[in-house]
């Protein structure tokens, strides 16, 4: 574990106020300078923002300059288990909400991101080392992606389900249902657009998610947690962990109360072992390295849906 003190003394020089994002200084004259208030980036679990139960954190640096941005909580295997418990507790209620309601809640998330777009753009710019203009375009894409998925909850059943014309006097129909608790390993590179692209499709259909954010670029993910916490998304539907992917991924892959896992953010080397662990309780395993800037497809939603087929006799 890195020592906060040594790390700070090494690299915290330029940071006067809060983390780089948001700007260190407010006010005009030297005399009016005030010390900014930094944000503590914690986990987002069960609708609350706890630190890691392990008490660990790790420094997060700007991609380009290497300057210290903040300390992120370094989640432990116990944090993973707590997050799964929170997800399980929330899942049935979320799935049981009407599709119309889920769509509205997701749309509300897009509204909240829009309101914070400046903050997200600064965090993305710092985290990924991209220009302010690129970061702003990325946030726009993030918002549009949420809106795209916000429209899906009340449509996906009509696209993937329907009546089946069986050869007999039965009414037979198929409906999609959420798989349950889904673990997601978010892509390493795209700190917010990638994260949103793997989380939104999972929750749109009524799953609850435990997502491990990009290890090197975790800050926008936690800010997204703040958005979710103020967007009527029930606590526990999305749980965001930051920390070491290599430490957390196997715990999720082997967890018996996780129904499915998206390995997109796993390294190619780690994938085989994670798939082996996932097999222990017949998890659904998915991964796809998408072009996050490209148009989304329903594929990621369909990967975490079950098909339920119901029969009933027809007669008088």
């Amino acid at each position: 574990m890195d020592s906060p003190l040594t790390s700070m003394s090494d690299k915290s020089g330029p940071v006067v106020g809060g983390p780089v994002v948001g700007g260190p200084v407010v006010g005009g004259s030297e005399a009016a300078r005030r010390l900014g208030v930094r944000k503590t980036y914690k986990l987002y679990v069960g609708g609350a923002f706890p630190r890691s139960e392990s008490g660990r954190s790790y420094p997060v640096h700007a991609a380009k300059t290497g300057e210290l941005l903040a300390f992120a909580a370094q989640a432990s295997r116990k944090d993973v288990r707590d997050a799964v418990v929170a997800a399980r507790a929330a899942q049935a209620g979320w799935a049981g909400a009407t599709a119309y309601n889920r769509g509205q809640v997701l749309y509300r998330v897009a509204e909240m991101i829009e309101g914070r777009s400046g903050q997200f753009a600064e965090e993305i710019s710092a985290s990924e080392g991209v220009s302010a203009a690129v970061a702003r375009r990325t946030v726009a894409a993030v918002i549009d992606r949420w809106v795209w998925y916000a429209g899906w909850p009340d449509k996906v059943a009509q696209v993937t389900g329907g009546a089946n014309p069986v050869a007999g006097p039965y009414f037979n129909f198929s409906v999609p249902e959420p798989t349950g608790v889904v673990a997601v390993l978010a892509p390493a590179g795209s700190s917010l657009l990638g994260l949103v692209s793997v989380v939104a499709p999972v929750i749109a259909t009524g799953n609850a998610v435990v997502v491990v954010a990009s290890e090197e670029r975790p800050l926008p993910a936690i800010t997204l947690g703040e958005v979710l916490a103020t967007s009527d998304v029930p606590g526990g539907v999305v749980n965001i962990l930051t920390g070491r992917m290599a430490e957390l991924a196997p715990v999720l892959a082997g967890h018996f109360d996780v129904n499915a896992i998206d390995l997109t953010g796993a390294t190619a080397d780690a994938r085989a072992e994670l798939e082996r662990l996932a097999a222990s309780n017949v998890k659904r395993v998915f991964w796809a390295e998408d072009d996050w800037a490209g148009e989304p497809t329903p594929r990621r939603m369909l990967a975490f849906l079950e098909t339920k087929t119901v029969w009933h006799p027809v007669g008088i």
Partner: protein
Amino acid sequence: MADKTGSVGGSAGGGSAGRTARVATVAAGLDWQYAPAPESRDIVSIAPEYGLFIAGEFAPAATGRTFATVNPATEEHLARIAEAGQDDVNRAVAAARVAYEQVWGPMPGAERAKYLYRIARILQERSREFAVLESIDNGKPIKETRDVDIPLAAAHFFYYAGWADKLDYAGFGQAPRPIGVAGQVIPWNFPLLMAAWKLAPALAAGNTCVLKPAETTPLSALLLAEVCHQAGLPSGVVNVVTGAGDVGAAVVAHPDVNKVAFTGSTEVGIAISQAIAGSGKKLTLELGGKAANVVFDDAPLDQAIEGIVNGIFFNQGHVCCAGSRLLVQESVADQVVDRLQRRLTTLRLGDPLDKNTDIGAINSRQQLDKITELSAAGEAEGAHRWSPPCELPKRGYWFAPTVFTGVSQSHRIAREEIFGPVLSVLTFRTPDEAVTKANNTPYGLSAGVWTEKGSRILWMAQRMRAGVVWANTYNRFDPASPFGGYRESGFGREGGRHGLAAYLDV
């Protein structure tokens, strides 16, 4: 299956059973005598030896090894079957690859469709032959093979034939691509039907196949290979390699297999997942189950009793979606159990080729041992065991229909898949309790609900975590109806439009 028996000869045609089928007597003091109604086994000729079907030809295994398949109803030796080795599997996969690259993959869907229609038609034309062969090799009653296994297998080919030239409209985007070579491993409980479930969608989507039938029931798959040949199916499009689990393991592990489909136990399904982890192969699994069949106090009880019987005693309970846990509302529990027991007393167990037979033979010694062991555990753990008066044939593998009452959720017979004619009866008071108990299993393949109240049916159907819910019916199957599990019962669907997804690059 009662104290009074009528002697029913084995098959007329030759040499099968020297047994007697037990004739029910019965309730209400009536004494029914059924005349024997044996199906002739002459319609099918079983060769003394069968080879592997690779690249359009039957040939012995390179290893030269063979194994025997027996009639489980009599333990009579039926034939020797080639036992594939790694070289044979390599050859089969290579044949499938060539067929995929050069013939089947490039072929227009409309042409593929016509081959599948041909196969469906030949299955219909040779259905009686298939029904008899399946009954002999598997031990299941002829009325089931005749009325369920074979017609459904033909229907599956007919259904998917029509998809072959309509894939653009299946909802997976324009011009969805096949995956390549499919390695398919199937179980012994519905040998031909499972082969159809695997081959039909795979071929319709443009894949080629290496099929590994179960060790104890290889004959119908080999006859299906002959049908493929008769349909003019290009060589290598379907290959059949026979043997035990190691052959299946070699098929799924083969590096040139792109898609793996398995139906069987959860234990083996997990082993397969682990074996191919990281390979990038597309996988679908149809695994075990421990389905709850929930009967409310307002259920149509006459129909429910039939549904319970059909749910667990169809195919000797060798059904992954069998309704092996009966959950009865407490207020009608005594009545339901009483009626059920009376009904079971009229079931006829015996010669599978007799058209009157309801309960056939257990498929293998190994399976009989497993059922026997789990049933003994049920007694040892304190559940009350009951079977109708039932004399079992002296030879072959047999197990009387068995009902356990006083079962608690912790009992092994309420948790583990028995895969035999053994029903565990539990009770509940409220709908919430029924849902909780129904879902208290790592499996999630199927469920049943019996009630006259429509809103309650839909309420239950929403809450039971299972891929198939039968309401006021049980064990219905159709090629247009997606089938497959939640949770540890596997993933992917077979049947319907959904079944195509398993064989397309989507």
